[in-house]
């Protein structure tokens, strides 16, 4: 009996529209929003008046929770994670939370374990290592 499919990000049930959409890591959003904020600054004396509360809160948030500040590093993170057959959503959760162990990664993104993608622990381990390397050399 499958009535309505309930939303559950842990199983990657986020609706087709968002599943196919491009996800953004906090670091990426931070780059986008800061760029936009600068533009507004150039045009107006009082930029904080020009942006919505949603914009401001989001900007504060992504600045606070960006793991990677350097645009090149951000690009590299996406590049590395893209090698692992991850869904956009999974990729971004990993990029945002930067789990340190395989166990933690699976707890954060349970769907990577049960989609039959041959993502064994070794592969996940390697992925996490690569991520931490970027952080180190940022």
């Amino acid at each position: 009996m499958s009535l309505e499919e309930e939303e559950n990000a842990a199983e990657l049930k986020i609706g087709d529209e968002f599943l196919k959409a491009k996800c953004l890591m906090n670091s990426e959003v931070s780059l986008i929003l800061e760029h936009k904020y600068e533009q507004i600054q150039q045009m107006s004396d009082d930029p904080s008046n020009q942006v919505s509360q949603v914009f401001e809160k989001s900007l504060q948030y992504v600045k606070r929770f960006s793991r990677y500040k350097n645009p090149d590093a951000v690009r590299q993170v996406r590049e590395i994670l893209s090698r692992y057959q991850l869904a956009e959503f999974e990729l971004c959760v990993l990029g945002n939370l930067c789990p340190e162990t395989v166990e933690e990664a699976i707890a954060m993104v349970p769907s990577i374990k049960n989609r039959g993608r041959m993502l064994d622990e070794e592969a996940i381990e390697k992925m996490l290592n690569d991520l931490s390397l970027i952080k180190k050399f940022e």
Partner: protein
Amino acid sequence: MFFHIVLERNMQLHPRHFGRDLREKLVSKLMKDVEGTCSGRHGFIVAITGIESVGKGLIRDGTGFVTFPVKYQCVVFRPFKGEILEAVVTMVNKMGFFAEAGPVQIFVSNHLIPDDMEFQSGDVPNYTTSDGSVKIQKESEVRLKIIGTRVDATEIFCIGTIKDDFLGVISDPGANA
């Protein structure tokens, strides 16, 4: 989670705006209209990042207004049930605590806070473990899992839990001070 998606909107423009800068007028009106809004389906529209296309205008009968279908790219924030994210604690009380992740507010009720954390009232109400090693108070950063969302036309509210593996405090401001 933040997404970069394409949305469409029919923009009505008064004929007096028709001219060389019609497109700019459209875009600035679009930004004013949609940025900062929230819909249950797409979440919070944080920022418009580009215009994909402006369709042919349609003159409305009687008014002279012209409707342009505009496709635009934007950054949205949409929380999902089951999603794990980081948030900043904004208020702590006996019933639990409130936190913010960007534009969305999340409530974590006290029964979804680990049982070894006790509420301490006072100037800075907080939840603390018996040995005092972990503390949740205003401005703490926590990693939580969303377990429920209340979505209506213009608001999204979430409830979350920190009572699971790898969830909980990631930094508390008191410790750094």
